[in-house]
């Protein structure tokens, strides 16, 4: 199969999503732009509430009352999924050409059906397989996601499996129809670290063998580093930085990205005091005017009361900041490790 082709598979353009709540309108997404090509891996990182899941849900057509897409577009292979006969096409594509896995597999598995029956159901519904065909394919899929003793496991119920195994079942279901795009929303957040490593290895392997495009949503910079070629950093409903992973980790442009990287302790690090980004993200009920990071940004200037556009900083990297690449945080002092 071809590797990364030039034609974008998915394009999200200036997408805005709002939620009506008792407290008022929550501006969940405030103009998100992203695109992914065939065979590409993109990570979306950001803290809780930054809009990662809403982005995934919008692509999957899962935004429901009290939420609504207020503007922008979502295109699949160049054609809108929101306008014209888009919504009809969207229903055919979702679950088949694009599939989603969630953080907590328990919420998306049916507790009353064996896991084998659930995967078979997807195959029968989307691919029109017969029962017998589906049964054979289920065993192949379980094998592909590294589940030991597939015939036995296929007959078990979700609660009889460990968290790591359930996540493998979800992945088996997600790849059942050989999708072109897999969106994984915090797929390993609920898992222990050794099990996380197994699942990430599985996703990376499938990505390569099936030439899948993968959007990996996570708040863990370590998970990004292992799996993705490109990274989008979200903050308060917007993408604030986008670039190639190698480059972005080495020379982050946006003050938020700079701070995020240096507030994350590293397993292999010498002991410096962590950079603490004071304060917390703004409420999306009444997002601040101008740059959303302004209240926490050490290098904010007058101009930051205007919203900075996501603009190219250097080849392959863009940031939404008026002062990109200016070092925002002082060198942190080394920790006197022991108290001796």
């Amino acid at each position, binding site marked *: 199969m071809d590797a990364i082709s030039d034609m974008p598979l998915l394009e999200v353009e200036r997408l805005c999503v709002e939620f009506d709540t008792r407290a008022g309108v929550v501006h969940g997404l405030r103009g998100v732009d992203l695109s992914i090509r065939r065979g590409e891996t993109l990570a979306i990182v950001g803290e809780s509430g930054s809009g990662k899941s809403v982005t995934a849900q919008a692509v999957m057509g899962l935004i429901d009352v009290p939420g609504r897409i207020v503007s922008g577009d979502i295109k699949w292979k160049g054609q809108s999924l929101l306008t014209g006969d888009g919504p009809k096409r969207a229903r055919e594509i979702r679950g088949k050409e694009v599939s989603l896995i969630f953080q907590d597999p328990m919420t998306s598995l049916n507790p009353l059906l064996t896991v084998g029956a659930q995967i078979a159901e997807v195959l029968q519904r989307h691919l029109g397989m017969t029962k017998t065909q589906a049964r054979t394919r289920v065993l192949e899929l379980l094998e592909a996601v590294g589940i030991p003793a597939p015939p036995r496991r296929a007959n078990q119920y979700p609660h009889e499996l460990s968290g790591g195994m359930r996540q493998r079942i979800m992945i088996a279901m997600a790849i059942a129809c050989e999708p072109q795009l897999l969106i994984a929303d915090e797929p390993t957040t609920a898992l222990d670290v050794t099990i996380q490593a197994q699942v990430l290895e599985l996703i990376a392997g499938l990505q390569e063998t099936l030439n899948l495009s993968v959007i990996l949503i996570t708040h863990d910079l370590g998970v990004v580093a292992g799996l993705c070629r490109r990274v989008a950093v979200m903050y308060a409903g917007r993408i604030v930085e986008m670039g190639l992973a190698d480059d972005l980790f080495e020379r982050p442009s946006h003050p938020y990205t700079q701070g995020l990287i240096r*507030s994350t302790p590293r397993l292999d*690090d010498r002991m410096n005091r962590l950079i603490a980004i004071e304060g917390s993200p703004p409420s999306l009920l009444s997002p601040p005017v101008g740059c959303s990071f302004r209240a926490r940004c050490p290098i904010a200037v007058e101009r930051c009361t205007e919203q900075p556009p996501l603009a190219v900083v250097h080849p392959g990297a863009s940031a939404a900041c008026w002062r990109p690449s200016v070092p925002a945080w002082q060198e942190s002092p080394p*920790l006197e490790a022991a108290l001796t």
Partner: protein
Amino acid sequence: MSAALSLPPLADREPVLSVRSMTVEYEASRGGLWSKPSKVQALRDISFDIRPGETLGLVGESGSGKTTIGRAVLRRLDLADGRIFFRGRDITNVRGEELRKLRRHMQLVFQDPYASLNPRMRVLDIVAEPLIVYGIVKNADEARDEIGELMRLVGLPRDAHDRYPHAFSGGQRQRIGIARALALKPELIVADEPVSALDVSVRAQVVNLLQDLQKELGIAYLFIAHDLSVVRHISHRVAILHSGRLVEIADRDALYDNPQHPYTEALLSAVPVPDPRTQRARKRLIYRGDIPDVAHWPSGCHFHARCPLATERCSLQVPLLINKGEDHKVACWHR
């Protein structure tokens, strides 16, 4: 005001807490109405010390027994076997008024800053509660100055006093929980995943705060976490728990730079490093199989089903935690 400075070097300090051969059992859920209640062993033969002003990081995967260790140390659970000493005194069986007095000196900080604060109490009342319970002040208003000082210590605005928990972010709520734990000037704080529920950018605030408080007040921490990067950052020594048993305990750098137990190696290599080039170059040991469950601990070494070095002996005999280097204990037949 630096209590820590007046203390002798860490290695020479008498432990504030010593745990010896501690075993803890839970009632297993009953199979049927008539079956005998059986017991499951959540912890087996656990021993460790914590010295004043020291942080012992306790790491293990879900269900390994970290919280159970914390609860047992705080005497919220009885032991099936073993002893616990606090400042040299055997507290294994203290009860009633004695236990109440003891608890002043050992406090708990919880994982979930949302569930652990009473939403109907003002911050002032929340932080003052332990002082009132121990009869140090009669009411919260009497403690205003003292609590103002605590607020300053944990970096909360002074006007936080009269607000309710919902008005604070996760990181600020965790500061409130810490202020409350500090009110009685404890010598030991058990912090059970205190930053796990916080966002990355906020986590660093709380980690820095805990480090500053230790330096200023000389408190000892039992710091429970599953995030090995945070543990490396904050701990002086680190203990690795696997399925109810300690498998390795050592100085922080010895453990991270030179892990001995095969499970510790697997655990460390599984942690992704937030740097793509480094991460690609790292040696990763990904062992198949799941973490055993408390009701079905295997015989012998609990890690044997996943361990690449396992021999027959490993599935029959339990390896003891013994010294393999200076203050570096490992429980493995082949290391």
